[in-house]
């Protein structure tokens, strides 16, 4: 039954701007049938395969038309690989050996694994090609692949949850997004934030939305309004900068050279979180110190002015590094990860620290290094000793486990700084897996339990003479950033796309006002109440 115009669906908003669009449901993808033999008609299978490849090629052409110039080139390159003659010949050989058309094409693509192994650029193309092979197989099996998104018009896509791979298929016609599950720190939310697509996640009532309905996605109001228009959008509090500089520095989060260049175009004061995993995810063997140092030098050189906080590799959980022997447990979030893995692969950690030191000297930049996933004070001290013997940088740790939050006093004199990763801290504090799309509501940064723990971390750090910052997603929310400053943190670090907004917010209040706002947050007993009380307090200041 269609929802009446004016109906309000609530969830957790991602982004600062509202958008109106037509509901477009993305259905969950059906699973492909397993490998199977054909009934004996080789010629018919060949024709089927040719037709299916043609169909997917036409789909790529269509995608290419609606895409920008850069994306169009990508689609064209993909089409060329899909229609590769050598690939088709090897698929035909598989059909002749008995496999049906769908199986034969997948087998033919998989057989490229060996030839392409060890080269990051080739492996990426192969991964793309495998996605296309699944499409070919799906077409043959009569299965609809859910992400055939419209290329023109304005659509708000609705689904259970989206994977990072799904988001690669988003077209320009995707102006908004609503998910039934997922939380504010899910990958979908992070990608929407970086692409500036307004979204509402964790909105189970969206199950009743019907294709074709016009809706307003109002992330600031944490809601979707059925039939709503721009006039109903909740205005983000517009912060008018009253001083030139924010009350605490706003840094940028980066993970690659591209990010570093992008961050340098913002007003960010240095980098508050340089995630180094991306440099290693596509390597099949451990890269040499020289190779690592070269990458770090390029990235440090491009980074915005100010200190650069480099996090040693946080492998494991959702970030597998191929050349490290990583466990695959039932509960990845509780498996060995971060610093625990670095302990088992000590040489890798030493090489990484040395590479960063080479780059630091080469560029003359101010570098801070920190270890992820520290659980105890003794781990923190062990890392500090290792880092101080490897280079002349400030040394710190991430605070992402409730356990280390209890031991900050023990780190006085041992560490220069700490940086809070709110995403992981929330998942371990609330026992709510970030990858579990049903747990989104608990991962809301406005949960009073989290705010109170953050208060304790900031106070303990100050007493211990340790500089404290926050680099989790929560710091990308301008209003929440004011709360963080008021709780006593010395800096925040946000996605590049949010640096400007966070900076404006932190330039619009005095430190005294931020303290008052933090007190309001600390007094709240539910997440909703916390957020609305803080927004009210901020509105009365403006």
């Amino acid at each position, binding site marked *: 039954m269609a929802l009446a115009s004016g109906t309000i669906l609530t969830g957790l908003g991602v982004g600062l701007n509202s958008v109106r669009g037509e509901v477009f449901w993305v259905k969950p993808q059906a699973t492909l049938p397993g490998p199977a033999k054909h009934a004996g008609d080789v010629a018919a299978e060949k024709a089927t395969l040719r037709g299916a490849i043609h169909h997917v090629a036409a789909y790529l052409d269509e995608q290419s038309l609606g895409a920008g110039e850069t994306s169009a*080139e990508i689609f064209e390159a993909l089409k060329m690989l899909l229609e590769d003659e050598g690939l088709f010949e090897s698929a035909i050989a598989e059909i002749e050996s008995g496999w049906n058309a769908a199986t034969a094409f997948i087998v033919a693509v998989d057989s490229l694994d060996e*030839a392409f192994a060890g080269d990051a650029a080739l492996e990426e193309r192969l991964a793309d090609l495998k996605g296309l092979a699944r499409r070919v197989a799906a077409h043959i099996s009569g299965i609809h692949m859910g992400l055939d998104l419209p290329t023109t018009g304005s659509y708000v896509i609705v689904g259970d949850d989206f994977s990072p791979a799904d988001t690669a298929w988003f077209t320009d016609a995707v102006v908004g997004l609503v998910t039934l599950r997922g939380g504010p720190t899910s990958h979908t939310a992070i990608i929407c934030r970086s692409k500036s697509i307004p979204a509402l996640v964790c909105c189970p009532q969206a199950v009743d939305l019907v294709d074709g309905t016009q809706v307003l996605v109002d992330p600031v109001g944490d809601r979707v309004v059925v039939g709503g228009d721009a006039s109903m959008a909740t205005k983000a509090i517009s912060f008018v900068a009253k001083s030139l500089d924010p009350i605490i520095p706003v840094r940028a989060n980066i993970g690659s050279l591209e990010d570093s260049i992008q961050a340098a175009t913002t007003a960010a004061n240095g980098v508050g979180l340089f995630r180094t995993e991306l440099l290693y995810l596509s390597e099949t063997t451990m890269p040499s110190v020289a190779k690592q140092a070269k990458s770090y030098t390029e990235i440090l050189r491009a980074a915005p002015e100010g200190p650069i906080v480099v996090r040693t590799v946080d492998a494991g959980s959702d970030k597998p590094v191929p050349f490290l022997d990583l466990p695959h447990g039932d509960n990845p979030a509780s498996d060995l990860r971060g610093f625990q893995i670095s302990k088992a692969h000590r040489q890798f950690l030493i090489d990484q620290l040395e590479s960063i030191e080479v780059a630091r000297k080469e560029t003359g930049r101010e570098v801070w290094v920190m270890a992820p996933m520290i659980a105890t004070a003794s781990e923190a001290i062990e890392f500090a000793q290792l880092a101080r013997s490897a280079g002349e940088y400030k040394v710190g740790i991430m605070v992402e486990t409730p356990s280390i939050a209890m031991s900050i006093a023990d780190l006085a004199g041992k560490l220069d700084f700490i940086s809070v990763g709110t995403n992981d801290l929330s998942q371990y504090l609330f026992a709510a897996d970030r990858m579990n799309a049903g747990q989104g509501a608990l991962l809301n940064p406005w949960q009073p339990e989290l705010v109170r723990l953050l208060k304790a971390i900031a106070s303990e750090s100050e007493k211990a003479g340790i500089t404290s910052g926050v680099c989790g997603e929560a710091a990308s929310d301008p209003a929440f950033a004011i709360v963080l400053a008021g709780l006593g943190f010395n800096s925040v670090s946000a996605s590049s796309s949010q640096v400007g907004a966070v900076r404006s917010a932190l330039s619009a209040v005095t430190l005294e006002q931020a303290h008052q706002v933090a007190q309001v947050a600390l007094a709240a007993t539910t997440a909703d109440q916390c957020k609305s009380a803080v927004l009210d307090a901020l509105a009365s200041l403006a």
Partner: protein
Amino acid sequence: MITTTVIIEDPIGLHARPAGQIVKLVKESGLTVHMGKAGQELVMANSPLRMMALKAKTGEQLVIEVDTDDQGVADALFAQIQDFLKG
């Protein structure tokens, strides 16, 4: 049969784009062309995937063999391929 050697100048090596450009050119020319690393078996230049699987890197030499007796035609083809490999 006319043979030459070209050098890969593209900083990413023989990746998808130059491989695709070469295959397109070869198909349009209607000629039979083989390519590969010196001292190794050459492959038919009608499949970008096969060419990418050569894993030819920046600075490496590639042998090109074209099935024609017309030096002018061959030279024009070689010049264009070398151009594609400039990145």
